[in-house]
């Protein structure tokens, strides 16, 4: 007989009015009104995998970020309190990093605009890379200069130019500069001068 009573009690107890009448929260403004969901709420970061230690991608202050993930998806990005630079704080842009990384504005596919086209079309990444490599070599050849008017050695191409770097990693910039220079390309610039 105790069991049904327990069940009845539990059923009744799920009704806040009953809890009001039987518990300490008579006016129904506190514990009695709390829903089971509220009682069990937890921060989504607490269930996440150990965060990746990262750095904010916007300005150059270099605020440390903790990137929380779950099942291969980023679920939260917030400041890392351990950082002597930022002490866990972030500005509005840094705080918006989650949206920056996970938002629908992120392009996921190669887009290709053929000459004279008025719309984008699709292109497999591999094909795109092959096309780019062909074009790089062709433009390099067409813009090649062996010497200047005085006969000084130039050994370079003016047919291709590169722009960017202030938003890319040191390691990537290094590969960029290395490959570019080996190709004989000198026109390479970034935001530092802009």
């Amino acid at each position, binding site marked *: 007989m105790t069991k049904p009573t327990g069940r009845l009690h539990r059923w009744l107890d799920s009704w806040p009015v009953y809890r009001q009448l039987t518990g300490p929260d008579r006016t129904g*403004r*506190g514990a009695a*009104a709390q829903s089971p*969901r*509220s009682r069990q709420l937890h921060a989504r970061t*607490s269930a996440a995998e150990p965060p990746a230690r990262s750095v904010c991608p916007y300005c150059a202050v270099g605020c440390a970020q903790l990137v929380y993930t779950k099942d291969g998806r980023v679920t939260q990005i917030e400041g890392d309190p351990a950082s002597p630079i930022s002490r*866990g704080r*972030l500005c509005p842009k*840094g705080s918006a990093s989650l*949206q920056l990384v996970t938002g629908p504005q992120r392009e996921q596919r190669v887009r290709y605009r053929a000459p004279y086209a008025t719309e984008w079309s699709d292109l497999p990444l591999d094909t795109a890379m092959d096309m780019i490599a062909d074009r790089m070599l062709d433009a390099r050849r067409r813009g090649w200069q062996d010497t200047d008017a005085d006969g000084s050695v130039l050994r370079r191409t003016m047919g291709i130019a590169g722009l960017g770097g202030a938003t890319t990693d040191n390691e990537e910039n290094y590969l960029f500069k290395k490959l570019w220079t080996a190709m004989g390309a000198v026109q390479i610039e970034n935001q530092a001068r802009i």
Partner: protein
Amino acid sequence: MTSDAVTRELAEPPDALARANGYDEPPPRVGFFTDTSVCIGCKACEVACKEWNDVPDDGLDLLGMSFDNTGMLGANSWRHVAFVEQRRPAGQQGDGWALLDEMTAEVEPRLRAAPRGGSELGTTPLPTAPGGAVQDLGMPTFTRPGDGTGAETRTDFRWLMESDVCKHCTHAGCLDVCPTGALFRTEFGTVVVQQDICNGCGYCVSGCPYGVIDRSPLDGRAHKCTLCYDRLHDGLTPACAKACPTESIQFGDLDELRERADRRLADLHQQGVEEAQLYGRDPGDGVGGHGSLFLLLDDPEVYGMPPAPVVPTRYAPQIWRRVGAAAGAFALAAIGAFVSAAVGNRP
């Protein structure tokens, strides 16, 4: 703060509010201390809040209120940074500037013409003011700026910024009037809307004397700051306070925050910032004090907050007495009507 309020406060243990609301062994009451004297108006709090709580954007409209394009707190803005431009020096009491400046003069009539008087600022652009814009306001004129070469040139100016948030009142109007128990007092002494319960009756919107809570047109439910209730369960700092670059928003046990606020106020007064004042610090005020305290550099209404709000519940006894009397009168009228009709019918 009145002396009996102090006595009362000292007598109250930090978890008194939660205990009074039916919690056993609750943690101490927590809150915010928003020190506007160090707010740089970056709005990190607004963004961090939205990112954590998945709050949608509040409309992409230019409001013309200095750098404030959020307008006010609402269902989709749980933090709101106010920007006030004043022709008076910081750190010195001015002699009361007639507030009608160009910006206000242009924005105010537009607000009047807005739906809900601009209660939904941010979700709609400000309409054009009826009768067109005000051109010259005949405001107190200065020497032509730049005419002078010394101290009289126009440089006395200050720009106040303040991150507004739900006050988590000790006596919360929204919570008191909520008919479903969706709004409730948590074990931390904060006030939270339970989204699984709220049926969007909208009563809380009018119950709040600060204009904080609002019903979202997107999902029909009421929303406001939860003081990151989920994070509190894991001992984490609320998202806005964690992000705030200058510690303008501080989170902690309310007892300690009150002390911090008192100290900061004393410091500022000592530095000659006479106009600094605490808001929501007094447990004896109309809402029993805030869970989120503010240090302001001007009167609350300058930031769009009520100067001395009173929780509507305080009027409840008086109101119910009058309702009772009116109900009695109504009943008597009914009886009287039959009696008089019976009397009148008697030949």
